[in-house]
């Protein structure tokens, strides 16, 4: 999968701007994760998949998120021995598919609204 254009560099981590950017990106992480779990993925392969698409996520962030989504009943998981070591694979279950579809619809609505707002000359 080709990489998308790299994100602009983050400003100083303590600045208000950086915090707002963090909030913005945090909101996307659950949807981004769910979107890549239509087929089974283990944590590290998912990290790489997201990174290839331009979303850098750290392991210490993704693994707790995967556990949380599994606990919420959106993902099923199982350990598989493939290669030198066992790996825990996650994939969307029926409820996860339903929630992904719902979140995707909401996301598209938000994007549409936001594009309108950002393009509106009255907002200048």
């Amino acid at each position, binding site marked *: 999968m080709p990489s998308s254009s790299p994100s602009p560099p983050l400003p100083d981590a303590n600045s208000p701007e950086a*915090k707002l950017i963090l*909030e913005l*990106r945090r909101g996307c992480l659950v949807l981004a994760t769910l979107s890549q779990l239509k087929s089974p993925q283990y*944590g590290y392969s998912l990290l790489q998949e997201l990174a290839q698409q331009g979303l850098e996520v750290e392991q210490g962030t993704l*693994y707790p*998120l995967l556990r949380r989504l599994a606990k919420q009943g959106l993902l099923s998981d199982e350990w*598989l*021995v*493939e290669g030198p070591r*066992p790996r825990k694979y996650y994939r969307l279950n029926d409820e996860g598919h339903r929630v992904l579809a719902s979140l995707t619809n909401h996301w598209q609505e938000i994007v549409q609204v936001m594009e309108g707002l950002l393009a509106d000359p009255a907002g200048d």
Partner: protein
Amino acid sequence: MELIERYLYDVGRRLPAKQRQEVVDELRTSIYDALEDAHESEGISRPAAQGFNEELVVGELQGLGSPQEVAASYFPQSRYLIGPQHYDQFRQTVTWVFSSLGAVFFVLFCITLWAQPLEPGQFAGRLAGWGWELLDTSIFVFALLVLIFAAIQRLEWDEDSAPESAAFEGKALWDPRDLPAIGDLEEVNRFGAITSAVADLVLLGLLARLVYQLPELIPESLSTLASSTLLTPLPWLVAALGLGFLFHLVLALRGKWHRGLRLAHLAVDLVALYALWQVVQGFLAHSGDLAAVGFSENAIRVANGNAWMVLVIFSAILVWENVKHLRYLFGGAPAKGSSVQVAGS
């Protein structure tokens, strides 16, 4: 590689037993996957018999975050009064503050004994007074410490510190080479066990002395109260301390927790709780007798309240101490093998 295992051990010991093994296994796989990739991308050859390049391991673990941070990321922080990232400091602070408090009280008690020699029959009253004072102060100080740490945790817990945001934040630099050596989570703290056994023995001795000297220490008007508070529950008090002594001795000798010892720990604590229950009930039944030695009605009410408080605090400590044992006995770590399948099978 040892550094990775030390890291995983340090993360694991901060997690609840129920999810520890699975989280650690998943992290281990992920770290090894990442390191293999890192070696490939750096062009560092790694014969199968050799370990990973130490600099790359250090970099990988630093990128992952300190064990406190990683363990904390598995907890929604709002669920915990004091989360894993502050728990070590909290324990250190509590130990330091209470050691100091105990020492200060002991010194002050000795000074007052020296400055104001006791009349016969006053010792028990003076000791009890200091005991209540120490208890009240301890409760207040403990509550204050909990509040301070809970406030620190809440103040740090703003939107930006949610686990998902860490994806885009820099990690504080720390050196994985400073991680503690791997310990055994089942290993018994022998020093603690021996100290507890000695404390049980000392308390048994003090109890015997107290019972022997009771008629000299307690005024006649309080003999019924003393009898119901101390003599009626005496068999249970002796049983609790004696069993506690034997248990801590066996614990120190065995050196490792196992199912039988966990059950024994629970049983000894329940006997101790029942003994204390009898003491408190005995006190409450005749606390009105304190009026005969000058206690006001209000002071007696306060004393009754304190007696209940002692029982509640002891029960809370008992629950706190036994939760981990109950988890092992009835929860246990997930059996990883049962959920592992071989791809293609």
